[in-house]
């Protein structure tokens, strides 16, 4: 019996009844049909399945959690307790986090996660729940605590997994972009929207700068984090208001540049004995690259409203492997 990948609700329900620990992604209507059990979930109908990019409202993507040393802990966090996320995580293991898009938890995590206690010391992966784009305006992204059946648009849901001493979790990212060799852009404050920035040290409106260059807004700004390319995707340029909105915050103290293609397609070491326990891709990659119906490659999982590889990421694949 298949225990992972995109599958019908009935098959997922069977896995839950068998007692498997699962991380699930699916449309709200599909998730609401599932029984109580050892699972966490988030709403999204976009997937990179083994058969290729898929949009489905009646199937659920299953990522089983196995090989743990003790029964994983499942719980909801509100915005007030979320900063304790890493501190509460097991000393040796990993945590899977799902956050509903547009919630206070989402915004707070995006801005403050790098400063959470024990951040980067304990592996943290996850994604941001969303909705079908046709439902924008009347549907709300939600997460689910499967053990109680509680759906929430305001809480984050977490599965803490303790591993045996000889195994450890590793989180990698696959970024189709890297910083280009163009102008250096920096920001004075943390924020999801920006008026003023500095371009090569000169203060100016970012909206003016991007419009003057006729920038393709499907390309993110990219910062170099000691060798890791971290994207901030452009949501909207309001030329009249001279304002740019992003899908993740920009941070001061970092240098951003317009993206160029990186050529990355898979993290090193995937394959053979090492297979991902969890992976996700970005809805923007799904849309901009026209991935519906296209082969998924080595990594399958939901196509989400944001990826979490320790901190919030955009237009990036995240993969968690156990080594």
């Amino acid at each position: 019996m298949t225990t992972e990948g995109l599958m019908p609700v009935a098959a997922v329900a069977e896995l839950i009844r068998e007692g498997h620990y699962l991380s699930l992604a699916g449309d709200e209507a599909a998730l609401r049909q599932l029984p109580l059990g050892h699972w966490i979930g988030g709403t999204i109908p976009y997937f990179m399945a083994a058969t290729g990019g898929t949009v489905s409202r009646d199937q659920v993507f299953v990522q089983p959690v196995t090989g743990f040393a003790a029964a994983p802990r499942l719980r909801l966090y509100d915005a007030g307790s979320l900063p304790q996320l890493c501190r509460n995580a097991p000393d040796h293991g990993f945590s899977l986090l799902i956050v509903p898009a547009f919630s206070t938890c989402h915004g707070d995590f995006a801005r403050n996660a790098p400063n959470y206690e024990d951040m980067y010391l304990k592996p943290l992966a996850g994604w941001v729940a969303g909705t079908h784009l046709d439902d924008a305006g009347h549907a709300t992204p939600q997460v689910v605590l499967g053990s109680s059946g509680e759906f929430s648009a305001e809480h984050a849901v977490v599965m803490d997994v303790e591993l045996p001493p000889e195994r450890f979790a590793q989180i990698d990212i696959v970024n189709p972009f890297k910083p280009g060799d163009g102008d250096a852009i920096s920001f004075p404050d943390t924020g999801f929207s920006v008026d003023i920035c500095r371009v090569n040290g000169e203060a100016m409106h970012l909206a003016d700068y991007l419009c003057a260059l006729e920038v393709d807004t499907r390309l993110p700004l990219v910062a170099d984090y000691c060798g890791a390319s971290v994207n901030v995707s452009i949501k909207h340029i309001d030329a009249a208001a001279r304002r740019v909105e992003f899908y993740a915050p920009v941070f001061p103290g970092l240098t951003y540049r317009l993206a160029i293609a990186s050529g990355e397609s898979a993290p090193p070491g995937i394959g053979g004995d090492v297979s991902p326990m969890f992976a996700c891709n970005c809805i923007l990659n799904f849309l901009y690259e026209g991935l519906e119906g296209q082969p998924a490659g080595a990594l399958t999982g939901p196509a989400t409203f944001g990826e979490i590889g320790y901190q919030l990421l955009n237009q990036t694949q995240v993969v968690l492997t156990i080594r």
Partner: protein
Amino acid sequence: MKYEDLLCQALEIEPPWQIVRMRNDLGRHQLDVWVAREMPRRGWIFGPRHALPEVPERVWRHINVGQSRCVVHAATTADMAHMALPWIGAAEQVFTHALSRQIATHFMEGIKFQSICKLLDIPAGDLWKFKHSLDHGKISLSGKDTLMADSGQAQFGIPEADHPVWDALLTGGLDIEIRALSLKLLLTKLRGQMQLISDPEVRQMKAHELHHYFVRHAIQLSHELAQIRQN
């Protein structure tokens, strides 16, 4: 949750063990608690005294409660020693296992001897005794973190926390090729903070933070550590 349950939780005392008696007048800023295995009952602070087992009572200094020292009294039986109860201590030791772990963590983080005495309100003589026992393997620490850290540092050849290589990494004086995503993100954050920090002690704390990361993840950082050891 009741107040007494919260106190038990803070002191890492779990059922079937519970606090059966408490006094706060035996020492200045000192809370003495008596722990025993017994059935729950009401009014444990003001209730009747409980019969304790016919074995000698032992006393250890436990983790602080706020600004107060906490002293645990318990009549221990042989089987309790094998349970790794955080609120009892090893034979001949002054501190409970929980406080021992806390002190060891402070040592690992590079906090100075006198500072630990002040932070935890511990007499220097007691801390010397503990440190001597630790250095000579007379006591072991049940905390996973500490055990992993100790073996990690020795086994993987990680430079000491006060080695200049950590400052060089933090200031960008030394650049290495990093494979671990968590280290890339952490080092970026710490480098940003270092640009804003001028206080030498705080800068040293950042070096300890980075060192702690390497100790904790040594097994995954062979590529990075090979480059660091060359400096």
